[in-house]
């Protein structure tokens, strides 16, 4: 019942917002304003579901026989934590855009909250779905309502971002549809037995399709190009949700459907690592704080994808790596959400009384993302290192490589801090929804990962809470050396920049050396070339068939014309009086003679 409630309340609210459009303009505006105020409450049922619905219990399963092909919903080990952070993030985002004074509210905020509610439903739909069709329903609803979020400001950049996002999400949707049909027809309609079914037939094909489909959403290289474009274009609340919750849908898709496979695991691992490190290089040179955060998301998602890849490589470790991935996702969701929500908060509240609070919060979130000790980041990294201990990649232990990602993220965060500190301020006097929601997310960021890690994620192998890092010096040092390395590198770069040693292009203020969405230009031109080439070829083929048909019909009508002329010539001949007579006489004699001969013949 709780599942139904958590899915339906946001939808009901969206419906109400839509129907309000029918009323007279004045009442329409007031009703919509009041509805957006209630919007954040729509997430409450989902939060309750996450808290109360421990997997396997009555509230955690729902079967709707008449929906789609018999819809099943269930809260399971992985879904519960992700559900919680999604609910929290969406709640905070809705809070951020609605509980503020009318004067500060953005133009068309009700449309924004409507799209947020829709993507929230889609998002938790993907987590809760227990059968392929409802999963796809949730996924499609989420990705297409996200387009509404990205386009919100209607700026040219937003338009371009939406176009790119739409094209990529349509491609990913179709790939996922094909994969799901393959899995379902292999017997994996219910998600519990999907990976097994996917393993039976067309495994390679299914893996490829799933990589492509969910890779777009999870921002793995080379499919990540839409992320750096979409985040700056979307309103901050939306981009918080985009990188906090939506990107995780890609992760849950892989966890649900991916069958084992060494080659697939290896490919995914390499892509993940490339993503993790390359994103840092490109992110560092950006000027827009949200773009930097976007690249940080790409690198963090690289980290999580690496975990999933390991799960594929070594099936025994699948349970542990998946659990680690989920915990890390939880941590990253909240921390990244806090950072994104923080961008406007810094802009409005950095001065004056709330300044310290803002500084503390941002610092805390930054450290968590970097994985400093005592933060949820450290916890996440520790659990992941435990899960992947012993895996070798090109001779280097994976558990050595992962901390380097932390250094990368420290570099990015320092760059972010530098850029955000120099950003212009537009102070607001009284605290409003924006600040509150940001604070909420920061608090959740600190508390929730630990709670989830300890109690909710029972390691399927040891069947008890995942090991909580004890603060002995060994683990402390493991957590801190990557950060120190990062700080040292940053200092060196800073000194070089001070001395003017760095090439001018790198530090030029206006256009960053690498446009956001770096590979995009290459991919766009590739796509455009393929499209135009294919189009030209098809048009040529069409032209050819058209002319052939034209020639054939000309021949046909020429023949018909000749036939008609011949007939009318004959008609002219026959029309005359003498000719009828002549014909009659000829016919008469001919027939008579013929019958006489015939009769003569046989009688």
């Amino acid at each position, binding site marked *: 019942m709780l599942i139904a409630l958590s899915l339906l309340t946001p939808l009901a609210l969206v419906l109400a917002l839509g129907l309000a459009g029918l009323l007279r303009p004045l009442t329409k505006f007031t009703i919509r304003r009041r509805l957006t105020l209630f919007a954040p409450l729509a997430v409450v049922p989902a939060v309750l579901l996450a808290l109360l619905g421990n997997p396997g219990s009555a509230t955690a399963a729902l079967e709707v026989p008449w929906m789609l092909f018999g819809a099943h919903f269930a809260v399971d080990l992985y879904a519960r934590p992700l559900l919680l952070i999604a609910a929290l993030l969406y709640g905070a985002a809705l809070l951020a855009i609605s509980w503020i004074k009318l004067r500060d509210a953005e133009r068309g905020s009700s449309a924004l909250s409507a799209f947020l509610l829709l993507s929230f439903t889609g998002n938790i739909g993907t987590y809760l779905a227990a059968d392929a069709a409802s999963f796809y329903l949730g996924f499609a609803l989420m990705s297409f309502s996200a387009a509404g979020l990205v386009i919100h400001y209607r700026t040219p950049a937003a338009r371009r971002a939406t176009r790119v996002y739409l094209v990529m999400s349509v491609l990913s949707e179709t790939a996922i549809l094909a994969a799901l049909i393959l899995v379902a027809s292999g017997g994996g309609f219910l998600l519990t037995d999907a990976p097994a079914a996917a393993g039976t037939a067309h495994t390679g094909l299914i893996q490829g399709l799933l990589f492509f489909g969910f890779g777009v959403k999870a921002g793995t290289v080379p499919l990540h190009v839409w992320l750096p474009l979409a985040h700056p274009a979307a309103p901050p609340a939306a981009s918080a949700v985009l990188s906090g919750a939506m990107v995780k849908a890609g992760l849950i898709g892989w966890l649900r459907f991916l069958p084992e496979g060494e080659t697939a695991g290896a490919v995914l691992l390499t892509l993940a690592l490339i993503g993790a490190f390359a994103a840092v290089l490109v992110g560092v040179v950006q000027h827009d704080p949200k773009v930097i955060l976007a690249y940080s998301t790409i690198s963090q998602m690289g980290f999580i994808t690496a975990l999933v890849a390991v799960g594929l490589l070594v099936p025994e470790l699948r349970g542990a790596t998946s659990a680690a991935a989920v915990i890390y996702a939880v941590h990253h969701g909240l921390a990244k959400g806090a950072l994104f929500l923080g961008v406007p908060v810094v802009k409005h509240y950095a001065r004056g009384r709330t300044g310290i609070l803002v500084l503390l919060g941002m610092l805390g979130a930054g450290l968590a993302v970097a994985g400093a000790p005592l933060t949820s980041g450290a916890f996440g990294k520790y659990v992941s290192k435990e899960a992947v201990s012993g895996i070798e990649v090109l001779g280097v232990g994976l558990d050595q490589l992962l901390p380097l990602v932390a250094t990368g993220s420290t570099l990015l965060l320092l760059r972010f801090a530098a850029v955000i500190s120099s950003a212009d301020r537009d102070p607001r006097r009284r605290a409003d929804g924006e600040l509150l929601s940001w604070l909420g997310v920061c608090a959740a960021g600190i508390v929730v990962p630990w709670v989830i890690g300890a109690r909710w994620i029972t390691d399927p192998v040891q069947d008890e809470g995942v090991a909580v890092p004890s603060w002995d010096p060994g683990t402390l040092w493991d957590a801190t050396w990557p950060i120190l390395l990062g700080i040292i590198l940053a200092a060196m770069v800073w000194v070089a920049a001070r001395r003017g040693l760095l090439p001018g292009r790198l530090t030029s203020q206006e256009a960053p050396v690498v446009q956001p969405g770096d590979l995009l230009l290459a991919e766009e031109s590739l796509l455009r070339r393929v499209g135009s080439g294919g189009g030209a070829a098809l048009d040529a083929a069409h032209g050819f068939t058209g002319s052939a048909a034209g020639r054939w019909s000309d021949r046909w009508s020429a023949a018909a014309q000749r036939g*008609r002329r011949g007939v009318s010539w004959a*008609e002219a001949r*026959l029309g005359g009086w003498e000719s009828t007579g002549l014909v*009659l006489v000829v*016919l008469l004699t001919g*027939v008579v003679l*013929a*019958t006489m001969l*015939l009769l003569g013949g046989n009688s």
Partner: protein
Amino acid sequence: MNAPMSLTLFCLGAVVLIPLLASALSVLLGSAARRVLGVLTSAAVLGLSAPILVRVTSGETLELALGGFESPLGITLRADGLSALFLAMTAIVGAVVSCYAAARPAATGKRLVAQTVEPATVTDGDHRAALTEDAPAAWRTGHAGFWPLWLGCWSGLNAVFVSGDLFNTYVGLELVGLTAVALVALGGREAWAAALRYLFIAVLGSLLFLIGVALIYSVTGTLDIIDSGEAITQLAAQGDADLAAVVLALCLISLGLALKVALVPLHGWLIPAHSSAPSAVSPLLSALVIKAALFVLLRAWLWVAGPLPELEILAWVLAGMGTAAILLGSVMALRQSRLKPLIAYSTVAQVGYWFLLLPLLLDPETSALEGQPGTTLEEGAVLAGALSGTVALALGHGLAKASLFLSAGHLKDLYSTDEITELRGAGRAHPMLVMSMGLSAVGLIGLPLSLGFSGKWLLATSAVAAGHYWILVVLVAGTLFSAAYLLKAVAPLLVMSEDDQTALTLPQAQNHPGASDRTLTGKAQLAPFLLGLLTVLTGFLGVWLTGVLEVGAPW
């Protein structure tokens, strides 16, 4: 003989004689009275033919010796399935056209009237009083002479359909021919030449027919259709030398009738005659007059000659001419720019369908089908199927063509032109008329739910059963062509406005003599619509028609 029997026999006799009597009577009356008499007679004939049809459908052939004289000298009237059907169709079409002519006297032709002098009383037949030299002659619409001629023609038709012996058929044919020529002549200046040409053809045809009948009489010693049929079958059984004379007679009769029915190489006279005839006359010509010749041909081929194998060559020649008719008629119809010649050519084309069955009659039990497990048409049915198909086609054509010619004539009278391009958009002013042209087009093309479709279906199934696949091809080609030229005739009428929405301007309508006439003209449009509706509704009568044809069938 019990009462009802004598009543239907009375109807049998009356159906021939009453129109003749009315024709004679109408000569004495004024033009208004003639219209009333005309309508009354048509109602009477309709009433008389109903009991005949009922009696025949219940399964017995009616025989009546006029005046009690027995067969060699006396006239015996015989009505079997075939004649009952043709009688009924003629009654329906005749009645509707008569009402139309009564409602719109202007449709009955043009008369030459001296300007000043009151129109001279019309003497019998067509001899006009000599006109005074100086007063310039002017053409007036409406010709009172229409009624006597048409009623005479009607009685001739009925005589042909119910006559029991060949000689009476000849007399009937002549009466029809004579009155038809005169009816064409009512159409004014350009109709006279066509009428004269029609006259020569009619006389030539009937002379050939007469020689044929005489030959048959000399061989069989009897003029009665049934007796001569039996005599000939005996002759064929003995393989008598006289069979040559019979075959020669059949050749002469078939060619004579082909002339009268305007089968392709001999169709020259039909186009000018039917298109220049007045708008009330051309439906009668196309729908009824040529059907008389077809009826006699069917009688000769099936009842008299009985399918003699020796007629093989003649059958194939006629079938060839029929196929040529379908193709040539349709192509020429496609090339016409005026409505009435187009419809006339369509008649020439449709005539071709009625001759396709002849080769089928000669060898119905070809071996082509022995091997098929599921052959549904057993051997005897091929003949029945072919005949009912042809009769259905002929009757369907009668109804549809009458409606089409009425509508075309109506438009020609109103706008004094039947150029298709000038009549563009006539549909807007006369929706009922275009609707009836559409319905008759459905009947002529042979789309389902029309007698034409059932006819084509029956002919096709029996042809395929007898292995004559070429008929299927001809039928399909014919249907496609007829669809093409009928679409060419009807489509322009539907045009509402030019592409750039400018309204269409119709040629200025003829000024009508009186307002009262306007309502009548409006009413008159009901006639073609009724006939069009009938073509479609009779689509359901396929089974009933085959049943009726069984009555008095030769096999």
